[in-house]
């Protein structure tokens, strides 16, 4: 059974990790599109409409890949995790079904109108379409995070007849405090991806001295929104998230930090390699007492180490969890530095001529993707060995009749398909960026206008 379990886990990890490349940009860009459309509406300047049309095309490609890689997620709970679904469907089926009913219809209807109906809708109508696409995608994010939050910190349920969990309180499920903070933290991560991508494209145009008026608009939007998001990512959302973990999943906190023995005045580890067999951290580079302070607001507070908990409660991938967490936090810190410095340069009116900063913004573009992925890995590896924290072990959740061989079959299929999809996605995005936002450069014409019906 152990083998099938591993394949099912990798199956989910692979498909969800690949999928999340797309929604994070979708959700971030959705906000920035509303920003651009608002600018267009307030200034009446066609420049912002063209900018929005350009990003609409990129959004469209990205959204499409997000949708087609998202459908397998909705089905995989049943195909690969049937025992879990049978037990938990009565509770988290609520949030997953609500996502379909409330956000997907909204998003898909108005994205069609946003991309193909600009002529027909008029200025205010088109702004509204952008806003509703934003609303739909952000609602969708909430329902998914609420689902995950229930697995991290189950609330509002009771044990029904036959051993399945039943919903006991709708609002406890929906307003789970874990969901609220995790959502804020997740969405800020998505906004940062959107901001870095927009700023990077802008920087690329400025550095290559083409479409410079658009380049300035993109850099400005990315940096302004990005700086705010980077700061909020750390405080209060990251801080609150950490507090919840310390409170509800203390063993996870110890594993994330690579803290094997309990310590008063525990240090914050910047670098170091956890050695789980020997129970220690090699080559540690530490800042003393910071972890105690961050967790309990007291320099000498006692933080529990892994040795205080039975090994059966430890997350099963401690090194991976430790690195994910440190990558996320390290990158988050770098984002604050980059965005705040860029914002200061913008304020002083020097950003557009500051080549080193533009280079920096352009090269940073993969980093928010890595940070977002690492963040999710921290949450999901940290939840192990539980599938539903404290209630159901991961090993109990898989489909009892789906063998390792069948799971490999589909995993290999997805790997092949997603490789092709990933290459096409990068190719098409590169091409849109290369063509640029100026009107009349697109070989298919302005598709939005072309498809207008009688």
């Amino acid at each position, binding site marked *: 059974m152990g083998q099938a379990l591993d394949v099912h886990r990798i199956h989910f990890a692979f498909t969800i990790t690949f999928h999340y490349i797309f929604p994070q940009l979708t959700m971030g860009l959705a906000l920035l599109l509303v920003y651009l459309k608002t600018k267009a509406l307030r200034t009446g300047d066609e420049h912002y409409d063209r900018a929005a049309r350009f990003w609409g095309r990129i959004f469209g490609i990205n959204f499409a*890949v997000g949708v087609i890689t998202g459908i397998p997620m909705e089905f995989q709970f049943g195909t690969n995790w049937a025992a879990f679904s049978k037990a938990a469907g009565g509770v988290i089926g609520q949030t997953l079904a609500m996502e379909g009913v409330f956000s997907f219809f909204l998003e898909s209807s108005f994205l069609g109108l946003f991309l193909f109906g600009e002529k027909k809708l008029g200025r205010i109508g088109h702004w509204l379409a952008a806003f509703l696409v934003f609303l739909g995608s952000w609602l969708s994010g909430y329902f998914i995070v609420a689902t995950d939050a229930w697995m991290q910190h189950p609330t509002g349920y009771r044990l029904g007849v036959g051993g399945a969990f039943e919903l006991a309180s709708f609002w406890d499920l929906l307003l789970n405090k874990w969901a609220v903070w995790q959502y804020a933290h997740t969405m800020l991560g998505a906004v940062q991806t959107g901001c870095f991508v927009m700023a990077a494209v802008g920087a690329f145009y400025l550095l290559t001295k083409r479409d410079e008026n658009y380049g300035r608009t993109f850099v400005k939007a990315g940096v302004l929104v990005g700086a705010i998001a980077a700061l909020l990512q750390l405080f209060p959302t990251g801080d609150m998230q950490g507090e919840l973990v310390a409170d509800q999943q203390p063993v996870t906190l110890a594993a994330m930090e690579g803290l094997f023995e309990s310590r008063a005045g525990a240090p914050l580890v910047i670098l170091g390699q956890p050695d789980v067999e020997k129970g220690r951290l090699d080559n540690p580079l530490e800042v003393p007492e910071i972890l105690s302070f961050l967790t309990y607001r007291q320099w000498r507070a006692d933080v529990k180490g892994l040795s205080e908990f039975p090994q059966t409660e430890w997350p099963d991938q401690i090194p991976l969890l430790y690195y994910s967490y440190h990558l996320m936090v390290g990158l988050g810190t770098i984002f604050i530095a980059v965005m705040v410095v860029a914002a200061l340069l913008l304020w002083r009116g020097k950003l557009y001529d500051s080549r080193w900063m533009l280079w920096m913004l352009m090269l940073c573009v993969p980093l928010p993707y890595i940070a977002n992925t690492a963040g999710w890995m921290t949450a999901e590896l940290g939840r192990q060995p539980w599938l539903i924290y404290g209630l159901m072990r991961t090993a109990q959740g898989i489909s009892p009749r789906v063998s390792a061989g069948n799971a490999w079959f589909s995993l290999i*299929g997805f790997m092949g398909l997603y490789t092709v999809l990933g290459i096409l996605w990068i190719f098409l995005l590169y091409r849109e960026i290369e063509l640029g936002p100026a009107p009349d450069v697109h070989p298919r014409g302005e598709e939005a206008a072309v498809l207008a019906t009688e």
Partner: protein
Amino acid sequence: MGTIWFCAVAFMIAMYVLLDGFDLGAGAIHLWVAKTEEERRQVLASIAPVWDGNEVWLVAAGGTIYFAFPALYASGFSGFYLPLMIVLWLLILRGASIEFRNHIKSAVWDPLWDFLFCASSLLLAVFFGAALGNVVRGVPLDASGYFFEPLWTNFRLGEETGILDWYTILVSVLALLALAMHGALWVQLKTSGAVNSRAGKLAGLAWWGVIVLTMLVTAVTFKIQPQVKENFTTWPVGFVFPLLAVSGIAGVAFELRRRNERRAFLASSAYLTGMLTSVVFGVYPMVLPAREAAYSLTVRTAKAGDYGLKIGLAWWILGMILAAGYSTYAYRSFAGKVAIDKGSRG
């Protein structure tokens, strides 16, 4: 409460078949009804703004099954593991071919996506038909509440069934023809010129196949699934469903002859609705019949807790009203025949 949700899920699946059915059908036939670049773009333009919204009905129906009938979701989805994975891949290929095609204009780019769009649409119609056939025929559920079906065994309806056997293949062919007809009627409604007349002709041809197979499949189904006969004899009022199907299919032929494109499409929708509701009515109260009747999953054994289902009803109805509002608005915005702007650099 279980029965209400049974109807709700049936409604969502019917919506999916009616709506995504026409864009699947359009995909399956477009290589034959649209020959030139401009004609192909006409077909694509007729579905581009709406196909994604149509597919949401599938995802939303999946989510609703998960929420209302967790045991069905768990057992059905893991039991149909292999065909479902293939369906997912086909959905991915199909979505990619619709969305990626129009970003580049090249002699190697367009035909590739056109072919993939056609092939994936065609195969999806076949797989959905097979899925329906499997549900009607029953699956090898046992006392554990789980099963696993290979893609095929010996193509017979014996103990060890596969996804594909002679019965489910029959249903598949019917599904393909019915959706091809449905899609052709949609394309006819939304286009003009050569595509329009070819689509009309194709719909007329498919109609004959649909008629023959509908009779054949209906006759066989009464033999294979005894519950169907039982339900129709216990509640004769259920005959309104097959009646709807019959009048729908008759309406298609009638309206095609009268050249009323809109009514022909609506008649085909009535046919599909009638067929689906007949099946659903026929298997009730089972949600997943087993080959061995005692292990069948029913509305009662598969449903979630009552409190959750009651709460769900409130938001589900609200959500459906909203969804109906957006879709109506979106469809009205793209009403009328598609016009490809010839002056553009298309």
